[in-house]
C-alpha cells in the first residue's frame, strides 16, 4: 500500500518551513509494528497519538462477555489514540493493534506543544482536525442510534474506501455494530442491484 508522510502532509496544509517540522518529527519515535502486535492494551497508560505512515491499525474494546467492538480503523494518514488516557491521565479502555505490519509515528504532547509554539497556522489546522474528528464521531453515534445496516455500510465505505479488502468481514461488522450475517446480506443485496454478470 502507498505510504503517507507526516512532514509533507503538515507542510502542504500549513504555511511552515518543512525543515522545522522535520526536526520535530525526527524527535518522535518511529516504529515498525508487526501484524498482530499491540501499540496499546487495556489498563495501560497511553502516552502517544499514533500516526500511520504505512499499514493499518484498529482501536477496539472488549466487553464483559469477551466480545470485541471496533471503534476506529486507522490506515495511511490517520491518527489514533486513547484520548482519555493521554489527556485525562486515566488507564486505557482500548486496545490498539496492528492489522498489517505497519510503520507508525509516536507523537507525544510535547510534539503538539512545540509545533503550536512554532506556528499559529498549526494551531488553526489542529483545531480544524479536532473539529473534523468530533464531527465524524457525532455522525457515527447518530448512525449507530438511527441508521439501517445498509446506511452504516455506505458511510463506512465512504470513510474507509480501501479497508473492506484489507480486513476480515467480521471486523467490518464489529465496526458497524451489526452481525456478520447482516453485513453479508447488505453486501449481497448491493451486488444484486449493481452487478451484471458477464458469464
Amino acid at each position, binding site marked *: *500500500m*502507498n505510504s503517507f508522510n507526516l512532514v509533507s502532509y503538515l507542510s502542504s496544509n500549513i504555511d511552515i518551513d518543512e525543515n522545522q517540522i522535520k526536526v520535530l518529527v525526527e524527535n518522535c519515535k518511529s516504529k515498525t509494528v508487526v501484524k498482530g502486535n499491540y501499540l496499546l492494551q487495556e489498563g495501560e497508560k497511553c502516552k502517544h497519538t499514533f500516526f500511520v505512515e504505512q499499514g493499518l491499525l484498529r482501536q477496539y474494546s472488549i466487553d464483559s462477555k469477551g466480545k470485541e467492538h471496533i471503534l476506529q480503523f486507522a490506515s495511511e494518514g490517520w491518527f489514533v489514540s486513547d484520548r482519555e488516557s493521554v489527556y485525562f491521565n486515566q488507564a486505557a479502555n482500548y486496545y490498539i493493534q496492528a492489522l498489517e505490519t505497519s510503520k507508525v509515528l509516536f507523537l507525544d504532547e510535547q510534539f503538539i506543544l512545540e509545533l503550536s509554539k512554532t506556528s499559529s497556522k498549526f494551531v488553526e489546522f489542529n483545531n480544524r482536525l479536532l473539529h473534523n474528528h468530533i464531527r465524524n464521531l457525532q455522525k457515527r453515534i447518530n448512525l449507530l442510534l438511527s441508521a439501517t445496516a445498509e446506511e452504516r455500510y455506505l458511510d463506512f*465505505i465512504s470513510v474507509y*474506501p*480501501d479497508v*473492506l*479488502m*484489507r480486513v476480515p*468481514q467480521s471486523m467490518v461488522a464489529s465496526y458497524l455494530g451489526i452481525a456478520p450475517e447482516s453485513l*453479508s446480506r447488505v*453486501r*449481497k*443485496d*448491493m*451486488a*444484486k*442491484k*449493481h*452487478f451484471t*454478470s*458477464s*458469464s
Partner: protein
Amino acid sequence: MSVKQVELIASPKEPHFVGDGFRVHNFIPSGFRLDMQRMTPFIMLDYASKHYFEPSPQPKGVGVHPHRGFETVTIAYKGKVAHHDSGGGGGVISEGDVQWMTAASGVLHKEYHEENFSKTGGDFQMVQLWVNLPSKDKMSTPKYQALRNASINRYTLENNGGEIEVIAGKYNNIIGAASTFTPIHLYNAKLKSGAIASFSFPAHYNTALLVIEGSITVNNKEKVPTDHFVLMGNDGEDFNIQAIENAIVLILSGEPINEPIAAHGPFVMNTRQELMEAFDDFNKGKFGYLED
C-alpha cells in the same frame, strides 16, 4: 542482428505468504530495475518456488479478493489450485496447465489448493504473473482462457534437446495457445542437459527469464541457478540459453505499454481517479458477491 545481453540476475528474496497457501518470492515489482514501468507489460510476478505442503483437511489459499485493469496468468508446475469467481466460473489448474484470466473491468475470485491435493499434501510450485492491459481494454468484459497442458502447442528442439511450450505469442512456426491484448511471447522451455535454444525478440520488448528447474547459461556466459530471475537488456534481439542440467525456464517478452500506471493493491489503472472508482465499485458490489 545484435545480441540481447543479460542486464541483471536477481536471486529470490525471502518468501512471504499470500493468504496461507502461496509461499512466494516476489520479483516484479521490486525496486531497482524491476519496477512496473521497466517491466511493462509484466507488472507483477510472484514465484512460488517448490515447497512441500503437509496434508491439510482445510484447503489453504487466498480468500475472496477483487482485480481490475489487468490479466492474471497462473502457470502450474507442481500441485493443483481450485478457483471460483463472482461470475459463476471456476475450475482446477493442474500441473502443466496455464490459466489466463482477463480481470479487465473486474472480478472477485478466490484461489485454494485443490481439495484432494490439500488432503494428500505434496510439492507446490507455481508462477503468478500480472499482465497489464492497455487503457482501451481495461474496462472490457472479464474472461478466462483455461489452457490444459495438452492444448499448448510445442516446438520440438533438434537432437532430442527438449521442447518449447508456446503459451502465448509465437516461437518459430508454432503459435501460442493464449490470445493476448498486446504482443506477448510466453514460453516454457524444457531443455535436456546440454541442449541450446535460441530466441529473438524486438530490442524494445521487455524480456525476462525465470529458471524453474535446473540451471542454465545465457549467451554462453552468465550462469543462472534454479529459482533465479534474469532481466534481459533492451540492447539487442537475439540470445540463447543452454541447459547445464535438465532445465525448465519460463521465458517472457512483451511490447511495452507506454501509459501511466496508477496501482493500489489489486487494481491497476491509469489514473488515481480510476483507482478511486475501482474501490467504490468494489465496495458497492459492482464486482458481484462471492462467499468466502
